């Protein structure tokens, strides 16, 4: 930008004027000079996090609309609104105003439904984004802090969802609130204090809706907004990771500039997210509170479920066999405490600790800007799939009554099977994933070493049939050659009897060394030795018939 007064020859006056005014006062030109053409790498999976970001914006917009009409009060009122089957029924003002939003405000039902769908997509978007980051190792140095912010965001999103779910004060959300209370009160030592303070006395009291309301519309969104901003700024400063590929190194970013291409893409994706949420809000009915009726702690419906992101906790509670410890006049309801705390603890702590644990085991202190393909770090991928399986079993069990009902399986058997699967399935998933990863690595090695099967069968002069292999396209080859071996601690592979380096001598050190050699290392090297990279005729054409021995080299 030109200094004050001197208009740039090429910039039209309409832009130069205001921008000059701003730059004179903010010096924004320097920032824009550096950032207007900031390069963003292109890959579809890099947009998944934006689902969550844009859903959040839509949540803020629709949520603000809802607050104009919602009354966060548990005052008892007699309904006299548009929905006939509830006329004359006593209910809380919160529920009555939710009904009013649905039936007496134009677009109110649409906004309510879009808010709820956006909430589901907010959490779902965070989850798929997190899985992308995990499986590609994009959390590695220097991005561990942003990963931690992400874990925090996910936790807060669950809390935000829980508080919002309870606000309409209908019979379904009340069941969720009751379970929350039942879990909170079972906490040792502080349980009764927490619940009596949360509810302002005995459950359900008359305070919880207004308290959840201020948490839901002010405190938690405020923190979310701050953390999301920090998340974005860190991403901006650190630059996005990129997939391995042609011309892409750990020291560059290849892609499209922020202005105009990435901006337009991001704008388009915002509109897509908004559009899909509007689509769902229009054509798929969500949380029809009018058929649930007002909350009373005396009633409940079959099939009372939480929203999907709480399903894994519900499943854990259902899975647990009964167990309660009484000692010295105190009670530890283990069949509440374990399912409520342990799976959540395993998942969230595991997520938070993973980048640091991996760094500790691999000793990898380098910066990583080119991500891994999931197959190229098979243990990480297997751990991830194993965790998904663990979560998935709990999730399924959270809907076991619907599963039993729809698929005509005994309810009790779904639980028995779940109790076994929760331990067995993650192990199986681990082993299967690990094998699949190695298989895919072998496939890559075969393509690099021998080329791609062209489908062309050639008969040689002496009668032998071969299939012609052609070298992979340069892009794909570069993508595959982006593979790096998983690092191993130096000295971790010391022979028994040898002297291991410092830090690997004690029991913890030995464990660390053993884990390091197991986790890291190169299982299937890409180049198989007898192929020098110059495609010299023989390298391109591998005998398909009668010369299978050649292929063995890639499967060792």
């Amino acid at each position, binding site marked *: 930008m030109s200094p004050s007064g001197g208009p740039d020859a090429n910039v039209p006056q309409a832009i130069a004027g205001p921008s000059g005014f701003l730059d004179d006062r903010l010096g924004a030109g320097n920032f824009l000079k550096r950032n207007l053409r900031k390069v963003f790498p292109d890959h579809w*999976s890099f947009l998944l996090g934006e689902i969550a970001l844009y859903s959040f914006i839509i949540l803020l917009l629709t949520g603000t609309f809802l607050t104009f009409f919602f009354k966060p009060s548990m005052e008892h009122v007699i309904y006299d609104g548009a929905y006939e089957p509830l006329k004359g029924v006593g209910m809380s003002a919160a529920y009555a105003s939710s009904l009013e939003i649905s039936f007496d405000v134009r677009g109110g039902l649409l906004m309510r439904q879009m808010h709820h769908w956006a909430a589901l997509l907010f959490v779902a978007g965070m989850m798929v984004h997190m899985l992308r980051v995990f499986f590609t190792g994009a959390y590695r140095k220097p991005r561990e802090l942003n990963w931690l912010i992400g874990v925090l965001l996910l936790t807060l999103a669950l809390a935000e969802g829980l508080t919002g779910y309870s606000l309409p004060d209908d019979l379904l959300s009340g069941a969720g609130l009751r379970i929350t209370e039942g879990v909170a009160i079972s906490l040792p030592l502080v349980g009764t204090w927490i619940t009596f303070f949360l509810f302002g006395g005995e459950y359900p009291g008359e305070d919880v809706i207004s308290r959840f309301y201020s948490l839901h519309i002010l405190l938690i969104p405020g923190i979310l907004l701050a953390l999301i901003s920090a998340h974005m700024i860190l991403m901006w400063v650190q630059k996005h990771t990129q997939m391995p590929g042609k011309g892409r190194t750990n020291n560059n970013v290849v892609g499209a500039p922020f202005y105009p291409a990435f901006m337009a893409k991001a704008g388009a994706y915002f509109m897509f997210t908004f559009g899909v949420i509007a689509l769902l809000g229009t054509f798929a*009915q969500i949380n029809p509170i009018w058929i649930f009726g007002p909350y009373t702690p005396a009633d409940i419906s079959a099939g009372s479920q939480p929203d999907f992101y709480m399903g894994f906790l519900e499943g854990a509670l259902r899975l647990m066999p009964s167990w309660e410890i009484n000692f010295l006049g105190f009670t530890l309801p283990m069949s509440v405490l374990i399912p409520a705390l342990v799976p959540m603890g395993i998942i969230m702590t595991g997520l938070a600790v993973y980048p640091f644990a991996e760094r500790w085991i691999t000793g990898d202190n380098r910066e990583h800007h080119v991500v891994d393909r999931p197959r190229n770090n098979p243990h990480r991928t297997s751990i991830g799939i194993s965790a998904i399986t663990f979560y998935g079993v709990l999730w399924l069990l959270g809907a076991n009554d619907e599963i039993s009902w729809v698929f005509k399986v005994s309810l009790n058997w779904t639980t028995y099977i779940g109790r076994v699967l929760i331990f067995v399935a993650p192990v199986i998933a681990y082993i299967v994933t690990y094998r699949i990863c190695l298989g895919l690595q072998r496939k890559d090695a075969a393509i690099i070493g021998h080329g791609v099967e062209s489908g062309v069968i050639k008969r040689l002069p002496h009668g032998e049939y071969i299939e012609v292999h052609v070298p992979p396209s340069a892009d794909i080859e570069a993508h595959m050659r982006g593979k790096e071996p998983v690092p191993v601690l130096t000295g971790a592979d010391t022979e028994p009897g040898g002297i291991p380096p410092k830090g690997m001598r004690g029991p913890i050190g030995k464990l660390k060394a053993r884990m390091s050699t197991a986790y890291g290392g190169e299982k299937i090297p890409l180049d198989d030795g007898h192929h020098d990279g110059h495609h010299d005729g023989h390298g391109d054409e591998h005998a398909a018939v009668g010369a299978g021995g050649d292929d063995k080299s890639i499967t060792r």
Partner: protein
Amino acid sequence: MNRITARRRHPLARYAVLLLTLGLLGVAYTLAAPTSERADAAIASGRADDVAEGKKLFEQSCASCHGLNAEGIANRGPSLVGVGAASVDFQVSSGRMPLAQLGAQAPRKKPAPWVNEDTIRQLGAYVQSLGGGPTVPTQEMVDPAKGDKSKGGQLFRANCIQCHNFVGSGGALTQGKYAPPLHDATPRQIYEAMVTGPQAMPVFNDSIITPEQKRDMIAYIVGVREEPNPGGAGLGRIGPVTEGLVAWIVGISLLALAAIWITAKRRQAQ
């Protein structure tokens, strides 16, 4: 003789027989249908041989499980003494009885071919004659138009939704049993289910939940199941499970497709 045998073995013979049988059945049915109308008229005029007719029907279709005198057979069918005509009407008109096979629970199905208003009434009269019990409600007692939906809704939420779900979509019980959906149940069947407590369902007798209150509940059930879904597709109206599935399968998939479209490499003109 030879000619007949040859024709009998003609490849088309079996189809001809089939057609003939079907035709005869059709004729029999058309003959039978007006008969039942005539019977209706006879009943309306108060003929009282229902019990005897019912006993015959019972011996043909029910006695194999419930015993010749409806005293019940262990592990096959319970005693029907005292269950009343309401129970018969509910079980037979909803196709639950006669049972096709033993299972955790008798499912609703198409009623048996011999089932019609008359045969149900005759069977009912017979069972009623064995030891009394709840009788079939009148049309007036189950008329949804005469009930109060909001009062019925409160009772429905207090007593029914724990098994049948918010709007009667049904739900699972223990060991393979289930509370069936109420979508197809007629007002009369709903009433009869309440007073008789079929299968695992508990009884809500008339002295505790009065007939008027039952009619209110019927008004609510029928009203709510017929009302439109103002927010789009109802997703089975069973709550967050289907909503979560839609969020993932429709929402996330559409957005992933959009992301793929936005970032897809364009074919480069060489």
